[in-house]
C-alpha cells in the first residue's frame, strides 16, 4: 500500500546497514575527545542552562501555569526538537550519504532514514536529562513519562514525512530544505513551546495557535507527562493518525522521485 510495504522490505533488508551507519557516526563523534561519551549528555544540559539563564535574568516572562516553568520549557522544547530533528535527519540523509549511493546498492530509503537511529538515541538521552531536571525541581512525573517515546512519535512521523519529500525534492532544488527549516523556525512561534497558551492576548495569534496542529502534538504529551491529564486528547489522536497518512504520502513521493536523485547529488 503506497510504498509502505516496500519501505518495510527496504528497511528490514538494510537493518544491518542502518545499525552500522549509526554505530559508525556514534562512535566517531566521541573519538579523540577528553569528555568522550559524556558529550552525549552534555549538549542537552547546556541547552537547558541557556534557557535557565534567560529565565533567571528576567528576560522571559512566560506566565505561571500548573507546571513549573523550567519543566514546562524543557519538556516542550524537547518534544519540539523531535520535529526539526527528524526532518533534518531524513531530508539530509541522502546528501550526507551521497558517497554510498554512488558506490553501493543500499536502498536509498535506508540511507535516508539511517540518521533517524541517531534521533532515537537522542530521545532516550533526553529522557535522562528530563529525569535529572525533574529531580532537581522536585517535580514527580506521571507514569505517562514512560510512554514518552510513543507520545512524541507523531512529531517524529511528521518530521519524517516532510523529510522524505525534502530528501528527494531538496536534492533537485537545493534551496527547498533551508526554506523548510526557516519555515519551521517560524512555526515554533505559533506553537506553545516556551510560552504558555494562556498568556497570549492577541486574538489573531491565539487562533493561529489553536489552528496549528503541532500545538496539540507538543501540548498534550507535555501535560500528560507533567500533570497526568490533558485537554484536547481527541484532537491529538486525530492529528496523530494524520501524521501516519503523511508518512505514507512522503514515502509515495520518495519512491516516485528517488531515481532522479543520484545524478544530482
Amino acid at each position, binding site marked *: 500500500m503506497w510504498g509502505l510495504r516496500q519501505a518495510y522490505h527496504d528497511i528490514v533488508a538494510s537493518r544491518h546497514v542502518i545499525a*552500522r551507519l549509526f554505530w559508525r557516526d556514534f562512535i566517531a563523534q566521541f573519538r*579523540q575527545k577528553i569528555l568522550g561519551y559524556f558529550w552525549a549528555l552534555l549538549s542537552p544540559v547546556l541547552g537547558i542552562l541557556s534557557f535557565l539563564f534567560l529565565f533567571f535574568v528576567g528576560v522571559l516572562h512566560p506566565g505561571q501555569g500548573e507546571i513549573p516553568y523550567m519543566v514546562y520549557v524543557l519538556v516542550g522544547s524537547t518534544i519540539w526538537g523531535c520535529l526539526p530533528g527528524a526532518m533534518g535527519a531524513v531530508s539530509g540523509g541522502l546528501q550526507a550519504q551521497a*558517497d554510498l549511493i*554512488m*558506490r553501493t546498492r*543500499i536502498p536509498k530509503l535506508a540511507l535516508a532514514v539511517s540518521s533517524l537511529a541517531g534521533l532515537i538515541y537522542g530521545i532516550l538521552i533526553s529522557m535522562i536529562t528530563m529525569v535529572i531536571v525533574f529531580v532537581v525541581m522536585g517535580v514527580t512525573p506521571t507514569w505517562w513519562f514512560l510512554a514518552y517515546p510513543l507520545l512524541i512519535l507523531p512529531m517524529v512521523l511528521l518530521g519524517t514525512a516532510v523529510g522524505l519529500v525534502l530528501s528527494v525534492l531538496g536534492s*533537485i*532544488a537545493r534551496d527547498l530544505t533551508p526554506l523548510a527549516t526557516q519555515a519551521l523556525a517560524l512555526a515554533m512561534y505559533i506553537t506553545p513551546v516556551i510560552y504558555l497558551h494562556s498568556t497570549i492576548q492577541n486574538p489573531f495569534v491565539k487562533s493561529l495557535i489553536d489552528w496549528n496542529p503541532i500545538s496539540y502534538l507538543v501540548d498534550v504529551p507535555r501535560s500528560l507527562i507533567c500533570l497526568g491529564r490533558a485537554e484536547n486528547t481527541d484532537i491529538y489522536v486525530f492529528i496523530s493518525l494524520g501524521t501516519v497518512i503523511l508518512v505514507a504520502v512522503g514515502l509515495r513521493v520518495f519512491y516516485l522521485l528517488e531515481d*532522479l536523485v543520484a*545524478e544530482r547529488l
Partner: protein
Amino acid sequence: MAKPSVIVEGVSKKFGLSLKSALKYGLLDSYRRLIGKDSDHSLRPGEFWALNDVSFSLEPGDTLGIMGINGSGKTTLLRILNGTYSPDKGKVTLRGRIGALIAAGAGFSPMLSGRENVYISGTLLGMTPREIHKKFDEIVAFAELGDFIDMPVRNYSSGMSVRLGFAIAVIGTPEILLVDEVLAVGDMNFQKKCYERIQALKDRGTTILLVSHSPGAIWAVCNKGLVIHKSRCKGIISVEDACKEYEYINMLVRKPNLAGSGREENTLQASYEGSVGGTGDVIITKVEVLDESNRAISEIEYGESFCLRLNLDIKKPLTDVIVRMQINAEMIKSIAIIDSYESGGSFFSFPEGEHVVDIWVRRPNLRPGVYEFGPSVLQKTAGVHLYYDYCAASLIVKQPANRFFYADFRASVHLDTTYSVSTHDLITETTSVDVQNQQNSFGQK
C-alpha cells in the same frame, strides 16, 4: 546453456549539460511523476545522451572489459548496472548477488580503526555481520595489514586503505562483480594478488565487468570486450578487438589538428621560435600522405607503404637543396629522420616555381599509433633551415587484424624477430640443470 546473468537491453541515460537545466528538468520530471505521468524520455534542449541504446548480455563466468575514452559513458553504464542511476530508456536485468568495487577505500571513517571499518564496509557491500566475522582474518591477510588493522584509518597510507578496500570487496563472493578502475593499486605483488583473486572469482563463475583505461588490465582479466564511444557501443566483441578499437579511438582523439600546411609567406617567422619558420626562399605549401593508389589518407594499415608528398613553392632558384622529414611518435620526438642527402647522396636543384617532391616509405615497421611528420628544406651552404614545419601532417597506423600489439603503446618501431628456446645445458654443456624443471618454469612465465 546457462541463463544470462547480466542482460542490458537498449539502455539510454541522459544528463543535463548545466546545473540550471538539471534543476529545471528535475522539477519538471518530478511534477510529471507526481501527477502520474512518466518522465519525458526525449532529449530536451540542454541535455545530452551519456549512454545511448546500449545492449549486451553476459553469462556466468564471463568477464567483460568495458573500454572507452574519458566521457564516453563507461562509468554511467557501471552506475546503471549498480542500480545507482535508473536508465531513461531500456532495461537492465542482473541475476545474483552483486559486488561493486567502485572507487575502493572511499567511504572509510578516518577516526575509526581498520577493524571497525572492515565491519562497516562489509555491511555496506551487503555482507551480514556473521559473514564478515568469518572472513575477517582472510580480509586482513589479503590486505597485508597485520597489526595495523587496529590503527585509525586516517593514519593509513593511501596504499594501505586502498588495499583494505579492495580486500573487503573481493573476499566476499559476489556472483556479479562490477569493478571501476581500481586494479592498479598497491605494489606489483599486491596487484598480482588482485588479478589472481579476480581470476579465482571468474573460475568460480562470477560474472565480472571491468572498466579500465588500461588495455593491459582488460586483456589480462577479460574474455570479452565492449567499447563505448560517444555514448554508443557496437555490442560485445573479442577482448583483443576491443583493445584494438579502443586504441584506434584513442589515436583519432590524439591525432593533432594540422595547422602547419598552406601558410602564407608573410606569416613566416625567420626564427626558430615558432613551430613554422624559415628564410622565406622556399615554402612548403602542403604535405600529404598518400597510399599506393595515390589517394590522400589519414590512416593506414600496419606495415603498408606510404608516400609523403611535399608541395614546394620555390621563390628563387636554389641549388644544393636537402629535403628532410622528421618523424615523431607521440611520446618520443624524432623516432626516425628521412634526409634526401643521406638517402641518395646528392642534392636537389630547383628552378623558381612550384614543385612536388614524393618520398616513398616502403614497408615501414611502425607500430600502431599516431605519427607526425615535420618537413624541412635546407641548403648545404646556408647553414639554416630555408623552411621548417614541426608538424605538417600526421598518420594513424592501425592495429593489424592478425596480430595484437599491446605491450607498450609508447614503443614506435617493431623489429621482426624469431624465437628459439633451448635448455641451458644444450648451450653450456658443463652445467647440470633439471631439464624438465627448467621447461616448466619457462612455460609458466
